[in-house]
């Protein structure tokens, strides 16, 4: 695998456009354009070569661009026209908007966030210590089961109450919630004992529909 090449320090934003690209997310979410899981689903629609080679915040721009076009916040033609204009005149100022509510929103959102915990009307099926198997099916829709866990057996080590469920919420099916657990896997279970670190383990969060009880 390629080296990580970490940096000791780097600025939060590498260029001015990254600030606005990043803030597109909270403002578009505030406007009701999408929720977090729907945003992630659209990130995943990028061409893999583009995804892998893009600037990080370019992913966010792509997702907002796709959703805004799909939901008619703008037409592709209008967006292309304006893009060409700003490409030609990069120093032209943006239109004014002095609404103080938008600045207040920044303060409010950073301080409060958007909790994903929900109440559901049924008890969790599983308990800490249970051995479970992760669903290995490969749906076409957005989900949050990392590939390395599929079909693998692990042990529930934490329970977090019910959280918003990405498989419905992110796929235009309305918000639902499911019980959420943390599952611990040995490296040997994930990668085979011959190829695994014998003294390392992996923890991955799993919503209840992702798991079934392991046969002992």
């Amino acid at each position, binding site marked *: *695998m390629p*080296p*990580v*090449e*970490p*940096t000791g320090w780097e*600025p*939060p934003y*590498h*260029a*001015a*456009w990254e*600030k606005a*690209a*990043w*803030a*597109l997310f*909270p*403002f578009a979410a505030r*406007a009701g354009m999408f929720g*977090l899981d729907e945003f992630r689903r659209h990130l995943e629609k990028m061409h893999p070569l*583009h995804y*892998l080679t893009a600037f*990080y915040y370019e992913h966010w*721009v792509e997702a907002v661009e796709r959703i*805004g076009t799909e939901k008619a*916040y*703008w037409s592709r033609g*209008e967006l292309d026209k*304006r*893009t*060409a*204009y*700003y*490409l030609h005149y*990069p120093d032209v100022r*943006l*239109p*004014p908007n*002095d*609404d103080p509510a*938008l*600045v207040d*929103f920044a*303060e409010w959102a*950073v301080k409060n*966030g*958007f*909790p994903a915990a929900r109440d559901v009307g049924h008890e969790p099926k599983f308990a800490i210590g249970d051995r479970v198997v992760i669903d290995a099916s490969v749906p076409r829709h957005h989900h*949050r089961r*990392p590939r*390395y866990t599929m079909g693998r057996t692990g042990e529930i080590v934490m329970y977090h109450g019910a*959280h918003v469920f990405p498989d419905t919420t992110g796929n235009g099916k309305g918000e639902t919630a499911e019980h959420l657990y943390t599952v611990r896997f040995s490296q040997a279970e994930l990668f085979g004992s011959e190829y695994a*670190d014998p*003294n*390392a*383990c*992996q*923890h*991955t969060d799993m919503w209840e529909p992702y798991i079934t009880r392991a046969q002992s």
Partner: protein
Amino acid sequence: MTRVNLVHTPRTEEEIAARVKAIESILIEKGLMSEAGVDRFAEIYEHEVGPKLGAQVVAKAWIDPDFKARLLKDATEACAELGIGGLQGEHMIAVENTPAVHNVVVCSLCSCYPWPVLGLPPNWFKSMPYRARIIREPRLCLKEDFQLDIPAEIEIRVWDSNSEIRYWVVPQRPEGSEGMSVDALAGLITRDSMIGTGLARTA
């Protein structure tokens, strides 16, 4: 003959900047966004929210066992005692390094990171090599990429932030730091030590 297009032409940075400005201008005209709002968001994470906040929390945990117990039980609640919390830290869990266990954090699916205590993530945290390698070969990744040699007898626990739970690490307090003030201790606690790709600095 079938034409196969295998060439991918990425946008230039100037093209992306223009695209961002185009989207921004439409949202501004619709009353949904403003330059002042963008500036405020950007500024908060440039100057107010960053790893210094996480360092304060860890330093307090090092000197106050009751606080440490509360932090390890419910990091969201414990951080709220210090006025720390919010966006991307709505559900935080702090995991403690010990002489027997070393923890390290990743988001294998995208870029999830505990903003209230660490600020916005560096690009390497969001990169494909880190996301793949820390899961597949954590000990080797720490050793080769971060010059952090974790002996084979110490268990490595990797935490994937694939849900809205934000994991972060309470590093071990270094020897020789007895009697230091909270502020001095906080100076030993680096961003990487709270991701688990580094250790706290020695006193």
